[in-house]
């Protein structure tokens, strides 16, 4: 895969050498995770930088459930030590990358879960996961009719009947 570059093993810190973070989910579950795993998240990285500046570490409260958080941690653990192009802020992705096979399996969840994960990924600023979820959602609605799309995306038809018949909202494509 062109977008995944394995870093030389010797540079991957051994287990236990990373410091621990305490994450608290919205359902008040306390989850301890290695800082190194979560470094993919720009949000967490910024928090950690803050800790280092003030020499004070505290729990990080997150606005989503432990179920979702565990999923995100699973993702981050999987790609631990990998360089993903999207997560490197200096390297603009050269194009749309295909859904990685593992991601495809990992994101084989119902649409509610998928929307929760993408929201969490956005909050945590994990671009690679946002991108994978976006592609997965796009796959779900590919080739669907407008009515089916409403179902999948969880939106309601709020056009007035008049507007619905107006050309700017009615599409045959």
């Amino acid at each position, binding site marked *: 895969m062109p977008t995944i570059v394995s870093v030389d093993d010797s540079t991957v810190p051994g287990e236990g050498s990373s410091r621990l973070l305490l994450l608290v989910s919205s359902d008040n579950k306390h989850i301890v995770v290695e800082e190194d795993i979560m470094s993919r998240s720009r949000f967490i990285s910024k928090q950690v930088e803050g800790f280092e500046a003030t020499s004070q570490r505290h729990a990080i409260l997150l606005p989503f459930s432990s179920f979702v958080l565990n999923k995100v941690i699973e993702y981050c653990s999987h790609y631990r030590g990998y360089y993903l192009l999207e997560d490197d802020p200096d390297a603009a992705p050269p194009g749309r990358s295909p859904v990685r096979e593992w991601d495809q399996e990992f994101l084989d969840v119902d649409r509610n879960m998928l929307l929760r994960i993408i929201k969490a990924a956005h909050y945590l600023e994990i671009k690679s996961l946002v991108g994978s979820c*976006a592609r997965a959602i796009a796959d779900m609605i590919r080739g669907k009719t407008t009515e089916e799309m409403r179902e999948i995306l969880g939106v309601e038809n709020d056009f007035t009947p008049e507007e619905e018949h107006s050309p700017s909202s009615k599409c045959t494509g």
Partner: protein
Amino acid sequence: MARSLLDLPNETSLGILETLKVQDLLACYATCRRLHTLIASSVALQYTIELYASGMLDGVRGPHTLPVQDRLDRLRRHTAAWEELRWTNRVSLPHLIGCDCFPKVSGEVVTFQRDDEDEEISSLYVQLIPSELRAIEGKFVIHPAPEPSHLTQIHLDAAQELIVFRERTTTFHRLRLRSLFVDEFHPSAWNLGFIDYENLGLPQQAMFQDVCGDLLIMSPGPREAYPPILLNWKSGLSEANGAAVEFGTWMFLDDRHTLSFVVGKNNPRQPACLRISALAPANPAEAVPPSYDFVLPECLKHNIMVHGEAPLGPNFESAHAWRGCFYPDRADRLITLRALTSRSAPGFIIDVLASTFTRYIAAHKSAAGEPAVIVPWDAWGTHGARFTALEFPAVSWTSSGFRRALWGRSGDSTVLTVLDYCPRRVARAIARGTATVLHGAEVGAQYTGADVGPLHTLLPCIATEFVLPEDLAHERLYASICEDGVVFVKRHGQLDIVVDACAYTI
């Protein structure tokens, strides 16, 4: 609780939408308001949709998609269209048989009325002129009058958003507004919505004058001096306010909210006079920004202040000289005036008055707080350019468009002249050497060149001569210049109308 795409931040939703193929994007467009708005506000997505709609999108197969060769040809024609005037398409419109009305043209949309045989009912026709160059199919919609009535005063606004017309029966006159939706991607799906005049609280006798953007301007009654009525037709708010203006013909509102009108035309004791007013906030504390691009407050608290008044010059001294030829340009205050030189020896003088009026007003407003500045006609020479003395023996018509003026054929001549002063097109023409370049002096401008500001960009102009096709050369024609070209409507007796669009810009 079920989650929805709408819970996501816009940025993330756009990320999803951008991975979609164009067909899926179009289906998404129609799901709900929020996604509709999101897609409509994304330049990248709109660009994709536009490319698809015009058959120019690579890597997609769709009903519109053109072969690569055709796409290449179209791109080349697009470039070439800037360089010369030429006919792009001509359509015979058999369903227009019997139409007898000067059509209103805006862009590639033509509206007109058609009277039925018993002459009790007229219907409104809206025609979208097909354009191969822009991949627009020709379509039309008919709006039959709901009850026996005549339609008059048909007007189509520059945004092609609104059709204004009067309905006249033996018992009432009614001004109607009808919104027009034209969807270029699905031209079969046209729609005419409507707003009824009664709901807008206007006097029964109100005469429609002009519409620009959200604003309608009307004169409330016949003949006497009344303040004009401004109406925000989208919100239904109206207000009659400000200085009374003499009811005159040809009141024009432009997108910078300046109002041009002629007074004294019906008064033999007063010379005809062109006035240009600026709509300004009623509260002086709300100072007008120097750029003059202010947004009208919703409550429409406005006074109409007369900022300039210009007697119409020697050619316009006689009230008899008027032949209904007053064409303001909505872009740069270019006003084309046509006058009959004398009744015994018919001939026309065409004055094109280009004025940096808005800037001028702004400068004077900030000077001494004077509410009104009267600018004599001659003084306009230093603030505008006047191209006089382009004399035609008998000009059929003249018309102004966006930074452009069209002068019609004279006599039996089949040559039309288009004066173009859009800086971009002028620069292109000069670079390519494809058009005659006219400098101020050549067109008789009282143009001094000093302290003129944007007028430097108005001059030089390019004058393009345009030869009518052989079979149209001796016909009675109506012509109107619009952003996309010149639209000709031929009246073939009472039987047929041919519409031609000459696209020379995109």
